[in-house]
């Protein structure tokens, strides 16, 4: 008996020692994924979807567009200027949801005064510099964002210590696009850096509108870098884009010139201080320069003031040339405090926003000589200053019950409107057991005014800020390899801005949406998983007397067989609008990644393979009778090498 037990014991030990070290290293990488910090620290956060480093490696997503395309309620769309937008509103301007989508890189908010977001610049940004991505829908904890938002996208750059070494990659597609990138990182004791550079020429499908070719091609250069010295972290990002203006603001969607140049600069500085590193100082500067040159063959008659005569005369405008500089500078100090059952987060922030029109000309034709020239319209300087103080207390009432209270008081001073004092409040209750989480919340968030409202001569100076209320609930059940969550969210937008002949006014009616979603993740094994997201939104725009609902499904099957990974994705969307027949659209993507060695990877991807996306019916494009896809049928391939 003794011999038998000894043999079994030794076999057991031997078995232990025979565990494959490669598998253990894979387990170690998963256990220590940087996104785990989020999962643990922010466990009470609502409607969070995390794309881990492993997810991004296996899915081989090429840009943020691939992530946004799979999000419930929203999908990836582009405005008539070719900018990323996430809402099916008339995209002559960035829609409400565009403004309510906030983008952060390494916890630095990237925004503009023009739209109060930089999602239009970064919505299709490549992901080769990214370690992991978090997408929050609904009102997040103040630790994530104190801004009024419906969606917060957080990108985290690769870590210099973990990614020390070099990586190169190339990508091409069936439209003849190419993209290359290189990154290098190093970590020597106190000094750590990560440096990423890319150059891309993205070619897109050319759309015919009569004799006019509409294109959305884009040439992009991108520099992203982080430097860490002891407790100091510096963040530097520069993007330069030259893109076609697509339909532009051409009245009949037939522009003769459509050039857009955009440069985007972000410099951030962050330092944790105090003995326990519980306080953080952050300074952030963002600058966006837009240079636009549009021409059209059909003049747009407008009333224009001739400065010399001080008379309003009809002017026939053939195009627009403008250059604007949008700058945001902010500083903040945040502090975390743990007192018995209270987790307190508080801080102060000062933000200065400035939009300068460097050039702003209409292109007009001289009646007598029939030659084109420019007349200046107005050069403006738009400013907004925000001073805010905020505090959040997560009070653990019992071991399972947490009550969260959050308040933000903000002073909004602007160069045009009356000063405003804005109060953001949030209350939530969370009940957690080992497997279940129930969270119920209410929040009221005023939305900062954005610059398209400024300087409209007839806009009243006492225009009130729009504000949002959100009631919601999430139930989540989680066991080892399976989780399911149900969300319901009641969204209302008050004081919504509308425009009539007298300029902007606050609507007394509300813009209401009820969001419902059911999401499940099932992990068959480390190598095989399924994600399923079913959702529906009921929209009631009282001012427009418009009601409709949208529902949809996103599904992903991810399977890895030794060196090969297959990512199957399916998206179905249905829109039901009164008086219009249901619009159904769907999309199938297939990505195949082949890891030839640990350092060398090849990939191919088919997007919208059966070309079944319905697209968007842009104003005056073929008499509004046809739609254009933001997600084209596209086949891309490429390789990456680490050394």
């Amino acid at each position, binding site marked *: *008996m*003794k011999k038998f*037990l*000894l043999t*079994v*014991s*030794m076999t*057991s*030990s031997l078995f*232990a*020692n*025979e*565990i494959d*070290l490669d598998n*253990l*290293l894979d*387990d*170690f*990488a998963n*256990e*220590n994924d940087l996104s785990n910090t989020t999962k643990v620290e922010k466990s009470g956060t609502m409607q969070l979807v995390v794309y881990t*480093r492993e997810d991004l490696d296996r899915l081989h997503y090429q840009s943020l567009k691939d992530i946004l395309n799979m999000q419930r309620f929203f999908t990836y769309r582009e405005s008539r200027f070719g900018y990323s937008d996430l809402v099916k509103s008339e995209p002559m301007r960035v829609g409400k949801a565009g403004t309510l989508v906030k983008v952060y890189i390494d916890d630095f908010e990237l925004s503009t005064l023009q739209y109060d977001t930089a999602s239009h610049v970064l919505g299709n940004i490549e992901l080769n510099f990214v370690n992991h991505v978090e997408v929050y829908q609904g009102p997040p904890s103040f630790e994530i964002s104190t801004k009024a938002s419906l969606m917060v996208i957080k990108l985290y750059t*690769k*870590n210099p*210590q*973990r*990614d*020390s*070494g070099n*990586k190169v990659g190339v990508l091409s597609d069936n439209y003849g696009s190419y993209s290359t990138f290189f990154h290098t990182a190093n970590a*020597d*004791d106190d000094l750590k850096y990560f440096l990423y550079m890319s150059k891309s020429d993205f070619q897109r499908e050319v759309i015919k509108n009569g004799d006019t070719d509409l294109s959305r091609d884009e040439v992009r250069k991108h520099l992203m870098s982080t430097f860490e010295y002891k407790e100091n972290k510096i963040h530097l990002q520069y993007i330069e884009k030259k893109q076609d203006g697509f339909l532009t603001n051409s009245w009949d969607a037939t522009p003769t010139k459509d050039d857009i140049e955009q440069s985007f600069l972000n410099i951030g500085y962050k330092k944790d201080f105090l003995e326990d590193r519980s306080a953080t100082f952050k300074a952030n500067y963002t600058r966006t320069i837009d240079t636009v040159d549009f021409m059209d063959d059909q003049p747009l008659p407008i009333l224009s003031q001739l400065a010399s005569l001080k008379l309003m005369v009809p002017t026939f405008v053939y195009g627009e040339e403008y250059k604007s500089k949008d700058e945001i500078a902010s500083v903040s100090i945040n502090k975390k405090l743990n007192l018995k059952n209270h987790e307190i987060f508080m801080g102060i922030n000062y933000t200065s926003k400035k939009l300068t029109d460097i050039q702003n000309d209409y292109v007009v034709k001289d009646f007598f000589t029939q030659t084109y020239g420019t007349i200046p319209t107005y050069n403006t300087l738009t400013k907004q200053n925000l001073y805010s103080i905020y505090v959040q207390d997560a009070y653990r009432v019992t071991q399972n019950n947490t009550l969260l209270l959050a308040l933000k008081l903000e002073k909004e001073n602007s160069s045009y409107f009356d000063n405003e004092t804005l109060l953001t409040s949030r209350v939530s209750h969370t009940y957690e057991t080992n497997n279940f989480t129930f969270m119920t919340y209410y929040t009221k968030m005023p939305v900062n005014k954005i610059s398209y409202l400024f300087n409209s001569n007839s806009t009243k100076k006492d225009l009130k800020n729009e504000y949002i209320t959100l009631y919601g609930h999430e139930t989540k059940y989680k066991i080892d390899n399976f989780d399911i969550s149900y969300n319901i969210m009641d969204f209302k937008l008050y004081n919504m801005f509308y425009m009539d002949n007298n300029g902007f006014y606050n609507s007394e009616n509300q813009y209401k949406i009820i969001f419902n979603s059911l999401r499940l993740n099932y992990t068959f094994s480390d190598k095989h998983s399924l994600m399923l997201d079913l959702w529906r939104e009921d929209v009631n725009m009282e001012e427009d007397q418009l009601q409709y609902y949208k529902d949809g499904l996103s599904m992903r099957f991810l399977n890895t067989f030794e060196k090969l990974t297959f990512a199957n994705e399916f998206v179905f969307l249905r829109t039901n609008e009164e008086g219009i027949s249901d619009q159904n659209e769907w999309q199938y993507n297939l990505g195949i990644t082949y890891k030839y060695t*640990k*350092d060398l990877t090849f990939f191919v991807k088919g997007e919208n393979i059966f070309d079944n996306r319905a697209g968007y019916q842009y104003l005056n494009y073929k008499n509004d009778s046809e739609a254009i896809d933001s997600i084209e049928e596209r086949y891309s391939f490429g390789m990456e090498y*680490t*050394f």
Partner: protein
Amino acid sequence: MKKYILILLIGGTSLYGVSSESKIIKLIFTSLLNKSEISVYVEELPKKEIVKEAGFSIANICSKADIVYASKILLGCEEKPLFTDSYMSFLNEENAIGAFYWKKGRPNILFLRHRVEKFQLHMPKKLQKYQMESL
């Protein structure tokens, strides 16, 4: 009889419920040192937890340790084999027999043959693919 059942239970379940880092350290140190009781010298608290979780004892002073687990060479440990989590220390320290570190976005393990032999450590076949002949 109870003793054997206990050994069986400990032996059979010793790798469950512990972090993968502890499993890696356990696998490497038991293979290299080829002995049942191993004493490790370690200074940093997180590493102490890892070493304890792996089932090794922690030496009070370096001279009593079989191996050192640290980011860099520690005072008084110049004569002991060092297993490090720093690639730079692995390159620069003459008694760094191996390293477990992040590079190129993934965790890596490396051993250097002549340093392993210098300390008369045993390199089993299953670890030989992580062994380099020279830097």
